[in-house]
């Protein structure tokens, strides 16, 4: 379910069925890699939307977690932990982050929740059909990982 008035109303009625929160991680930066950061954000957004479509009834898709790559450093990790804590307090069992930014990898141990690192594919210049196909193929790889995660604590 999405972070929209319509879906949130639905979520409220079915909260116990929706045990998973998904959060796209979105880097913001000026400087050299500005464009690649934008590409990461775009790609992760597309992937998160598709994941939400597949698992609509069991996941709540939060708005992107945005962070300033160079300025924030560790601070972003702490903030993200706060998000996790809040979700857990609300009774959510699984918190999943989607990112194409490899700088999160070094914090993986430290992070609470599950980090799904998606290698960035340059989809922005593809024609819509091929773009769609690429996203579906990538999602096919992700679905089993999440279904495995769910098995750890079946409803």
């Amino acid at each position: 379910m999405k972070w929209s008035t319509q879906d949130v109303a639905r979520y409220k009625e079915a909260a116990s069925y929706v045990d998973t929160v998904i959060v796209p991680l979105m880097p913001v930066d000026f400087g050299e890699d500005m464009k690649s950061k934008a590409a990461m954000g775009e790609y992760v957004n597309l992937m998160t939307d598709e994941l939400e479509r597949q698992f609509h009834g069991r996941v709540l898709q939060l708005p992107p977690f945005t962070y300033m790559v160079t300025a924030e450093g560790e601070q972003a990790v702490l903030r993200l932990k706060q998000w996790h804590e809040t979700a857990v307090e609300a009774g959510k069992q699984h918190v999943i982050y989607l990112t194409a930014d490899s700088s999160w990898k070094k914090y993986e141990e430290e992070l609470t929740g599950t980090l799904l690192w998606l290698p960035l594919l340059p989809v922005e210049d593809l024609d819509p059909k091929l773009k769609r196909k690429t996203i579906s193929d990538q999602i096919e790889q992700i679905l089993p990982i999440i279904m495995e995660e769910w098995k750890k604590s079946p409803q």
Partner: protein
Amino acid sequence: MSEKNHNVSRRQFLTYTLTGVGGFMAAGMLMPMVRMAVDPVLDAAAEGDMNYLVEFDELGEEPIRRELTYEADDGWYESEQIETIYVYRDGDDVVALSAVCTHLGCTVSWEGSEDYPEMFYCPCHFGLYERDGTNVEGTPPTEPLHRYEYEIRDGAVYVGQSEPQ
């Protein structure tokens, strides 16, 4: 500050406030009218559209998965909508089912679980449906998968809206 000045400014304040509230009320009255004017157009556009799905020749008895993409316009944004559909042949008839689970809307897959061959399986809360879309009792869904109206033109299958069966 003189008494007079003070009064004037208070009156002004009241005037502004009233305009504010009045404005709000006017918006409240206008909204339904705009909706009434716009809605029929939107509905007509949605209902009339038939979208190409698949060649009739490609169909067999085994449900195959297809994705339908179309542009939806809610008045602000044009966004790409995607629908996943399972389609197969049943004699001369075509069965096109929406893959949206009727429980809470996850996407189901045909034979999505090894434990349940020949069935649609929902990974979210383990909902099950028969080949014709009938929900299996004892699993969360309480109604069958929705079915699309279809039409065949020049050997191709076109689908319209999906409806509860």
